[in-house]
């Protein structure tokens, strides 16, 4: 493995951050500059949104059910099994729904974007697109950013609902809890701040997934090996960034809304 000097490493890191920021900024700025590729946005929304639906359904159900299963034993010891609906509801809507959906979509789509765009870079298709007078940032990056941000919002809602459903199935079938009581408590515990926080996060996560995936794809170098590296880096970077941004967003919103 080739060793690089700390100065070189620092320069490369700053350069990467700068390039990523420029890509992210341009992907948003392109929304206000024609041409707008509506057909590409719809196509990407289909690939990203509907394409991710099976894994979101599966993970949403599992996480909700597991949350209920794990917390039920503890709650039972304190005779508070009736709180299970509240626990699953707050956990899913505020935190687990957005973050699990974000991570699953990052694994599926950030890698897909990085490999697709990376392959286009190494086979000169991106250069060909520029040579044909088309801006790849407008044609390829902006539709992916818009579609991922838009679709992740709805995928998170689906994930939240299925998580609650999974929790209700476990609570009623395994712990004999009343179905109606579960849904009543789950619904009543939620306040505006919970829902707002849970639906704001996917907007950030969607933006991160698409921009990181596109950034690693557009900067892929070194043939198929480079594309493979870009794909791995895109998943790792977007997942880490989602977790970090989630932490700061949660803290910030808690401070803004002054609640615990």
């Amino acid at each position: 493995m080739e060793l690089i000097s700390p100065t070189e490493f620092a320069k490369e890191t700053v350069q990467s951050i700068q390039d990523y920021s420029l890509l992210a900024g341009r992907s948003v700025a392109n929304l206000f500059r024609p041409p707008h590729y509506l057909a590409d946005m719809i196509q990407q929304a289909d690939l990203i949104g509907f394409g991710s639906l099976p894994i979101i359904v599966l993970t949403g159900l599992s996480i909700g059910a597991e949350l209920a299963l794990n917390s039920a034993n503890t709650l039972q010891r304190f005779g508070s099994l009736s709180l299970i609906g509240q626990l699953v509801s707050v956990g899913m809507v505020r935190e687990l729904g957005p973050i699990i959906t974000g991570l699953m979509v990052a694994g599926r789509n950030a890698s897909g974007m990085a490999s697709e765009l990376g392959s286009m870079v190494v086979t000169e298709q991106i250069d060909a697109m520029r040579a044909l007078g088309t801006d790849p940032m407008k044609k390829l990056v902006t539709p992916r950013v818009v579609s991922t941000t838009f679709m992740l919002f709805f995928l998170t809602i689906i994930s939240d609902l299925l998580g609650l459903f999974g929790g209700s199935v476990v609570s009623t079938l395994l712990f004999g809890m009343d179905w109606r009581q579960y849904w009543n408590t789950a619904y009543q515990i939620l306040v505006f701040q919970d829902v707002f926080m849970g639906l704001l996060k996917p907007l950030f996560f969607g933006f991160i997934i698409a921009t990181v995936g596109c950034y690693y794809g557009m900067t892929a170098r070194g043939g198929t090996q480079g594309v493979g590296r870009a794909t791995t880096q895109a998943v790792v970077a977007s997942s880490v960034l989602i977790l970090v941004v989630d932490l700061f967003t949660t803290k910030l919103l808690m401070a803004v809304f002054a609640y615990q």
Partner: protein
Amino acid sequence: MAAPPTAIEQHVSSEPDVAANVVVFENVSIAFEDKPVLDGISFRLAKGETKAVFGVAGSGKSTILKLALGLLKPDDGHIYVLGDDVTQMREEELFSLRQKIGMVFQESALFDSLTVRENVAFRLLEEGNVSEEEVEKPVREALSFVELEDTVDKFPSELSGGMRRRVAIARAIITHPEILLYDSPTGGLDPVTSTTIIQLIVKQRDVYKTSSLLVTHRLQDAFIMATHYFDRKANEMRPLPPGARGEVPMAFLILRDGKVIFDGDVHELAQSKDEYIREYIS
């Protein structure tokens, strides 16, 4: 062993003659990772002329095409394309200029998720205000030019290397660009397919009078182009009559160690006394 390169004397004024020259390189230098690839090169491509660019692998031939298209920025010097200094233009401004230029990439660079029809029509559809039905006629014409009309619904992966190269030519010429840039269009192809590609380039030169820069390793391809013309009536490439050599607008440019060591026509090339050039063309 050949003598060290001697750059030919350059005659490039500060104000390029845009009417006569469609591409002007003025003291252009570029280095990759501190390794100089082009070192202050200057040359001109006259309107209607085809200039073949030669040099060993890594001599910067393909870099010249990417510089002319603004895909790369030089470290130094100026490049005028159709009167615009591409070195001073922003990426946004370059897109409109690139619509007047066609480029055939070394490995074709066709969009692999699009059909041949969509690849060839790409530029027309991107320019907007046209439906898929309206582009059908020009697509058929462009594919007819390269004799590949029956591949319209195929994907690039279903085509041979030579066919992909011809589709790339069709994609480049569909809007009848003012300049065509060919990056090793016959590289890696068998002699028969290479001759077909060369015939298409000669046809484009002689029928549409398109100015072209042609990067190639194959000297014989450029010699064929310099000694043949396209007969419209017979719809085929034919040798120039004896004594008429040099009548076609064909020039040669040879690079060595980042410098231009030859820029002239086929007669000047044949008469060159430069040891390296003699060795190169032998």
